[in-house]
């Protein structure tokens, strides 16, 4: 019988936990956006006129095809992160796209229509240098791959290697260019810096060296940067020092010297300190390149030049000013597109013929720069022939902030993609402001009272405004009801943003690694504002803080972004309004010294902004905002402001106390020797977390009180010894005020990366078990015991007794990418852990499964307490995946925020993709279901009401009759 009971209990738990999305709810509360990252290579598919494919390879090691009409993804291949999956080059010919990956480790050929793999070959080891298509008799048949010491030929049709040959003198010569014009040989060009150029001609058929020459070029340091091949095989180089162009015919029998042409003789001048750039085009690898080329002489100066058969260079057109220039080919026609700045906010793009430099009529496209965007960095032109044989085109502009904008004549933006969002580093969710009328009411209470009559009048006027808006709303409803449903669009713009009834719609403020900030509506996922911060160093650390929430009308909400340069440690602040993205005019403190720590105090200044303290490397404190009121408050509260610093290079954790004069004093120090273990992560609790229940009711109705120390830090260390038997992960729980080590444990035979969550009275961490070769979870819970030491207030200085620590570990049957816990308004709802898996799933794992009090065996008392009997393995149920089939690639972080409904937690997962949804860890206990039967309940109520009326009447009549009797 007990077995039956046990089974029944398990069934009950399962029922309780089952919480999946219904089919008709797909996409109702959630959305996903897929990104590819900053584009490095982009090609428009040109083999047919109607083609609408754009092939891109990105810095995020992604090769993808975009629909050039809509900007949506056709398909996407996500390779490994890091240098192993780095895309070295992308070559496109017809329907074949050849990608070399991982410094020449692999070469793959993709079919561009459906993104299928044609073939993949493993290349011989060696440093990858360059690759090119090689054509024979008008057909592109081979791919030539140049590595550090060898050249190999592969068939384009199947990837098989045709031949491989060593490159002579590869230890001194840097081979950088491969060139073929469709004749019987392929030329490999190398350079010995500041000495000479080496040209080797290989026979395409068998790889035999046909010819090997070297040409003096003492001024040259790199072929790649300064040379191109133009016309019928003429190597053209530019030298900024002598201000001249050099030409070298590669096909002639006697290669003597390079022919020097002074730029001055062409009436050209290089801008000071600028490395001139040559750009040529070879539309078909089986044919020689074209004779026209661009020479960029300055940041805003391009020239279209032509090299004729006699080796004479003529200027076709001088573009000054010009930002970007690009060639485009459609069929037999090749044109040049040039972007010229028009004014501060707009650029115009025009097409020019390349043989004469004549501007084509009606080809102007205006590109409007965004007010807070980046400058254009790349131009891609898709040319096509119109019916009357004239050339039309579309243009894609890439800007410094990783945005792609696709333009059509006469300047319509067809689509734009914000690829910066592929690398979100931190985010916050901010409540939307109230509507104007609500704010009016709020404002009335906020202001100081100014007389009885004035207050009455104000109240009346605000009531009138409310009435007016209600009538307006009714009218709009009535008006919209007549229109067909498809036409009624609730477009969300910044002006119409307002908080909804349950505060489910919020503003997501996202900070990306490129330094671009976004404001995204959490309901629809549409980008409402963006702001590009220029001069952000790569690898900067970002910390986003909400200094003032939306709750303090009429003061606007205020977010502060702390940007810290990792190398110098110097930091800067960017203060902005999170709803509109506008930069605040507030005066910022100067931060001349590296910043070590920042802390947002719960104290507010007179404008309801939380005070931010920044501690520099001399332990001096800077307050922001910094005015008299703030300083006075700080002086009053100084003795209760403590902070800690972590120096992981020395394993030192130290605590400081603020003095009245805003200097600091060291009060505690803990040093974990770095020879044994190194600190990898330190996490406190989230400041906006609420804990509803002080304790847990046990099976016998007694209460086990939680140890709720808001100053507790979880410190995770990893052993320096990585031997299987001796490696360990250390867990320290340290009080951030007193420096007292509350708990200290080591997980033996374990290794990182450790992901962990620290919340309420528990820490959950995940590690790799080296011995058993599996991922394991461990949970620590802290309890004060059966009675509280001081139930009214918690003080770190006055908790002499150490808490009881319970711990249990479990096996998790999957690797994990990130870990976060759900968060709700009041903390009544049970907690779930959100686990981002490398497979792209986001698992909502009930915390109930990670409870160190899970008993072995099935006791009466633990059943009473709803404890699940211990099982060493944590289950993964498919219905726990909150993103069903909407996989989130390379999930890097999960952000949770409470909503106005206690049952609902808003979740945003970010990585390569963005995914937003809502989770209900305890189901929607405070919401009526969608299919709630209002008709039934109201008819029953009405029925009962009438029944009571009638029976009352009948009873009266009966009483009356009885009285008469």
């Amino acid at each position, binding site marked *: 019988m007990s077995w039956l009971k046990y089974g029944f209990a398990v069934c009950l738990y399962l029922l309780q936990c089952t919480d999946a999305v219904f089919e008709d709810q797909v996409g109702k509360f959630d959305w996903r956006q897929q990104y590819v990252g900053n584009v490095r290579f982009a090609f428009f598919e040109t083999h047919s006129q109607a083609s609408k494919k754009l092939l891109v390879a990105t810095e995020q090691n992604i090769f993808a095809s975009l629909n050039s009409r809509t900007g949506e993804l056709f398909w996407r291949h996500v390779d490994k992160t890091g240098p192993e999956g780095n895309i070295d080059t992308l070559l496109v010919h017809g329907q074949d796209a050849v990608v070399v990956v991982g410094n020449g480790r692999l070469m793959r050929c993709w079919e561009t229509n459906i993104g299928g793999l044609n073939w993949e070959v493993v290349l011989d080891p060696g440093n990858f240098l360059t690759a090119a298509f090689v054509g024979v008799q008008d057909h592109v048949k081979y791919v030539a791959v140049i590595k550090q010491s060898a050249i190999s030929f592969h068939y384009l049709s199947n990837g098989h290697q045709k031949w491989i040959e060593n490159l002579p003198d590869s230890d001194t010569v840097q081979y950088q260019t491969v060139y073929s014009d469709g004749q019987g040989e392929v030329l490999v060009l190398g350079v010995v810096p500041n000495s000479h150029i080496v040209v080797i001609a290989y026979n395409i058929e068998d790889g035999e060296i046909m010819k090997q020459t070297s040409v003096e070029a003492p001024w040259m340091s790199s072929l790649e940067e300064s040379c191109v091949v133009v016309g019928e095989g003429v190597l053209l180089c530019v030298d900024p020092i002598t201000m001249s162009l050099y030409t070298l015919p590669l096909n002639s029998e006697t290669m003597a010297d390079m022919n020097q042409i002074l730029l001055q003789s062409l009436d050209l001048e290089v801008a000071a300190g600028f490395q001139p750039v040559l750009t040529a085009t070879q539309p078909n690898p089986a044919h020689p390149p074209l004779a026209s080329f661009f020479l960029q002489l300055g940041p805003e100066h391009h020239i279209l030049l032509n090299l004729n058969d006699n080796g004479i260079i003529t200027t076709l057109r001088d573009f000054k000013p010009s930002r970007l220039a690009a060639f485009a080919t459609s069929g037999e026609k090749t044109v040049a597109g040039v972007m010229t700045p028009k004014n501060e906010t707009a650029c115009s793009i025009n097409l020019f013929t390349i043989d004469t430099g004549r501007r084509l009529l009606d080809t102007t496209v205006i590109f409007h720069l965004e007010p807070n965007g980046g400058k254009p960095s790349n131009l891609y032109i898709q040319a096509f022939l119109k019916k009357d044989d004239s050339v039309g085109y579309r243009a894609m502009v890439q800007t410094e902030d990783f945005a792609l904008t696709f333009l059509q004549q006469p300047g319509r933006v067809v689509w734009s993609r914000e690829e910066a969002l592929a690398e979100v580093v931190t985010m916050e969710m901010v409540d939307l402001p109230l509507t104007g009328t609500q704010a009016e009411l709020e404002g009335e209470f906020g202001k100081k009272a100014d007389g009885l009559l004035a207050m009455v009048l104000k109240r009346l006027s605000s009531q009138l405004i409310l009435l007016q808006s209600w009538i307006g709303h009714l009218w709009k409803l009535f008006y919209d009801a007549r229109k067909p449903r498809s036409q009624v669009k609730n477009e969300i713009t910044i002006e119409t943003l307002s908080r909804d009834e349950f505060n489910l719609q919020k503003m997501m403020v996202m900070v990306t690694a490129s330094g671009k900030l976004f404001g995204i509506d959490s309901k629809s996922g549409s980008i409402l504002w963006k702001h590009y911060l220029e001069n952000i160093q790569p690898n900067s650390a970002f910390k986003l803080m909400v200094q003032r929430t939306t709750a303090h009308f009429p003061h606007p909400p205020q977010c502060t972004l702390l940007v810290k340069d990792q190398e110098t440690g110097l930091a800067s602040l960017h203060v902005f309004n999170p709803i509109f993205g506008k930069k605040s005019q507030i005066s910022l403190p100067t931060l001349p010294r590296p910043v070590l720590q920042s802390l947002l105090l719960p104290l507010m200044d007179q404008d309801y902004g939380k005070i931010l303290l920044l501690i520099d490397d001399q332990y001096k404190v800077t307050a922001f905002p910094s005015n008299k009121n703030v300083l006075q408050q700080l002086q009053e509260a100084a003795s209760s402001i403590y902070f800690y610093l972590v120096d992981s290079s020395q394993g030192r954790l130290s605590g400081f106390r603020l003095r009245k004069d805003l200097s600091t004093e060291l009060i505690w120090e803990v040093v974990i020797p770095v020879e044994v273990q190194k600190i990898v992560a330190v996490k406190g609790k989230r400041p906006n977390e609420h804990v509803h229940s002080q304790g847990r009711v046990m099976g016998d109705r007694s209460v086990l009180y939680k140890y709720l120390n808001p100053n507790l830090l979880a410190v995770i260390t990893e052993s320096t010894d990585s031997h299987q038997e001796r490696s360990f992960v250390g867990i320290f729980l340290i009080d951030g005020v007193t420096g007292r080590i509350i708990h200290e*444990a080591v997980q033996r035979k374990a290794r990182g990366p450790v992901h962990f969550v620290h919340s309420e009275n528990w820490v959950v961490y995940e590690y790799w078990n080296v011995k058993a070769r599996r991922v394991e979870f461990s949970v620590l819970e802290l309890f004060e015991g059966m009675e509280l030491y001081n139930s009214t207030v918690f003080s770190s200085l006055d908790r002499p007794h150490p808490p009881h620590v319970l711990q249990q570990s479990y096996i998790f049957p999957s690797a994990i990418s990130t870990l976060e816990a759900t968060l709700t308004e009041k903390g009544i709802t049970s907690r779930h852990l959100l686990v981002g898996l490398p497979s792209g799933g986001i698992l909502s794992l009930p915390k109930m499964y990670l409870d160190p009090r899970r008993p072995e065996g099935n006791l009466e008392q633990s059943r009473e307490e709803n404890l699940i009997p211990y099982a060493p393995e944590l289950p993964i149920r498919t219905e726990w995946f909150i993103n069903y089939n909407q996989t989130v690639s390379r999930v890097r972080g999960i952000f949770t925020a409470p909503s106005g409904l206690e049952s609902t937690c808003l979740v945003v997962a970010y990585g390569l993709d963005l995914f937003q949804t809502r989770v209900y860890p305890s189901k929607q206990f405070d919401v009526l279901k969608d299919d709630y039967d209002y008709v039934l309940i109201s008819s029953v109520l009405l029925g009962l009401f009438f029944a009571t009326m009638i029976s009352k009447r009948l009873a009266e009549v009966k009483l009356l009759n009885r009285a008469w009797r």
Partner: protein
Amino acid sequence: MASSGAAHISMSVLSTITLLFWAEFAHCNLNRRPSDALDTDFSVPVEHSFEIDDEPRFRRRGSLELRAGRESGVTISQSHLSEEDRSTLKEVAAVDGLYRIRVPRVSLQVDRQTEKQADGGYLTAFVKACALVESHLSDVITLHTDVTGYLIGVSIVTIPGTCRGLEVEDEVDLESFNTTLIVMAPVNAPMPETAGFIAALEMEREKKEKNPQEQKSFFAKYWMYIVPLVLFLMMSGAQDQSGGGNGGGAANGGGR
């Protein structure tokens, strides 16, 4: 069952580590060494500082005596507070100052003293001076070590820990420390308990085998009730079908 007792029992049954008695009281893991070879005592100074101006000036408070050998362990020996110190402490307590202690970074394993001596650096901790005064100098000093026995942190708490502003009249109460010394080494975090779980499953199975009555399925146990019920339902269902078919036809007809 008494409530508190039940809690302890259930906690230990839950196979989780109860860290009530986890701290090794003044005891260090040195038993492996043959005792008599190296029985030299080693002492580590404990210093304290309490100043009106809050600038730390550390003075000797006592010393930790590390002993090797069979009766290995750590004890603290400390002297009485001088008259002057007592009055300073009271003054510091009155201005809500701090009482700090510090110990040098050393290894608590006597045989390792020679290895990492010249490291320098101290570990510091503090407690409010008023709390120390009000507790009549009864404090708990905890020394935390890492896996190798090297000191990584020190903490001091007073019992009770509050500052109520009580006046300590009797000077005698502030004469000598009543110190409890605890050495805490890291505990081993538990691994997933696969063995125990499998054993429990085995036991369950054995129990079932011993008791075949339990093993019978639901149907096997209650077939004598189920079969007549099913028969009855089938028979009544067959009757219904003939009658129901007609009824259904009529209903359909009515619908048109």
